[in-house]
């Protein structure tokens, strides 16, 4: 499918490839690398049911490695929209662009955060909640969990900011510069292995800065292990520590060590 799409795109067409995430990323990674990215043809790859959305179908259907792989490909843009509305805007942007794009989306029926398709641009994140001291950078469909974590923190007197970071590659360096300058703790939140994902990308950005950043980076993501037992997405998120309570605890803990 991917090679065929590359052939179509090289002829001036705009193919969209779509199936369950592991089968359109890790399974055919070489086709994406060679036929799409090496040739820089504008194929849009859509992985559905990303992260733990298909938790109940087992690790074969889960995808906690795709961000690491796809963002390592030259020329590939990587986008994980928060909801169906942000998917609409990011798909439009992907189809208007002349480069390959990977859209990492949920399954269906995830909570809709935005009342209408929000403005989207590669390398620009959206503030979902204003705040100070603590910043939650959430990518993909974990945004409602991040907002719940923020509400949880707000109940204890904090006022965290939340950003929806759909554009994983490129990152929003303007927002990163600001939040690492103006706050104390920055948390990344992703339904992906901590190795190589969104948090890793932010960590790479941090160490590449010419001067040390002021805020502390804390990464929330999946552990480096497969899940073996049955269970739905919420259960799988819980096993990987991706709950509002766990994220709020991580934020508070990091903040307390600074003061």
């Amino acid at each position: 499918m991917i090679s065929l799409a590359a052939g179509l795109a090289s002829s001036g067409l705009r193919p969209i490839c779509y199936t369950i995430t592991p089968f359109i990323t890790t399974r055919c990674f070489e086709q994406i690398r060679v036929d799409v990215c090496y040739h820089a043809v504008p194929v849009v790859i859509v992985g559905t049911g990303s992260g733990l959305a298909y938790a109940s179908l087992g690790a074969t259907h889960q995808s906690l490695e795709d961000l690491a792989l796809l963002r390592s490909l030259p020329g590939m843009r990587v986008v994980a929209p928060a909801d169906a509305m942000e998917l609409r805007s990011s798909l439009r942007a992907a189809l208007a662009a002349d480069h390959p794009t990977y859209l990492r989306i949920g399954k269906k029926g995830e909570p809709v955060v935005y009342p209408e398709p929000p403005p989207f641009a590669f390398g620009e994140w959206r503030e979902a909640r204003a705040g100070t001291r603590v910043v939650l950078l959430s990518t993909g469909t974990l945004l409602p969990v991040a907002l719940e974590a923020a509400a949880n923190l707000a109940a204890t007197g904090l006022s965290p900011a939340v950003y929806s970071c759909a554009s994983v590659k490129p990152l929003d360096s303007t927002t990163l510069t600001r939040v690492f300058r103006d706050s104390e703790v920055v948390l990344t939140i992703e339904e992906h292995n901590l190795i190589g994902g969104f948090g890793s990308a932010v960590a790479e950005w941090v160490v590449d800065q010419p001067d040390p950043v002021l805020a502390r980076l804390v990464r929330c993501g999946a552990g480096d292990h497969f899940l073996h037992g049955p269970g739905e997405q919420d259960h799988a998120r819980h096993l990987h520590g991706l709950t509002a309570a766990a994220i709020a605890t991580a934020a508070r803990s990091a903040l307390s060590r600074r003061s």
Partner: protein
Amino acid sequence: MMAMPGNAMSIEQLDRLAREIRHQLIALSCHAQSAHLAGALSCVDLLVGLYWTCLRIDPHRPSDPARDRLIFSKGHAISALYCVLARRGFFPTEELLHYNEEGSRLPEQPSPGCVPGVEWATGSLGHGLGVGLGMALASRIQRAPYNVYVVMSDGECQEGSVWEGAMLAPRLRLGNLTALIDFNKWQATGRSDEIMAMSPLKAKWDAFGWATREIDGHNLAAICDALAAPRPADTPLAIIAHTVKGKGASFMEDDNNWHYRSPTVGEVERARIELNQP
């Protein structure tokens, strides 16, 4: 409308051209100290048949949307295509001397658009057929009636992705798609038939729903006939071409050492005499 090239050439002239190209290839492998000579030699006649009697191409308009596409999927043997493209006028023949040289346009395995006429960057086997399917399908969607040819190696047919494409092309009724398999019976480390159950190769493509032709891949009359013969309008065609790895120099023929070896100056001279070249 692009004319069919070289219709006037006789089989004898095509044979002579193939011998010239073989000599050039052998000299080039010595000059560049490059590997994969034997697999390049085995497909020379197929390329001569394609580029001088079949493909509707114009070297002066290499990106013409109406052109026929040839995907050279056995990228390790790209030196054969470079020699053919240079002779067909896609780039200056003198540039071949810079094959495999740092900074040149002729890498040992092709990069995207490295020189005009190279349609796809190959080297990792098993990609060309899928890409060819996409181009052949685009031709139909865009109502641009061109043909797509994919030259593959027999070892390449061990890649699962080849059979995904083989299964899909008849379903898409891609009558403008032709796969040519350079069946030289060897791959990098041994006899292809001993490494995998390759045979019967024709029956496999038959079973997948392709029109098939099995030919002597060094018989230019047979090659031209297979390329020109009437075929079903909506069925892809697989040409299984029986070839000899290292064809053209007796001491290279069917000797798999020449998968990686490059010849000495003395061996180039021996080959020149055998190929009856000035």
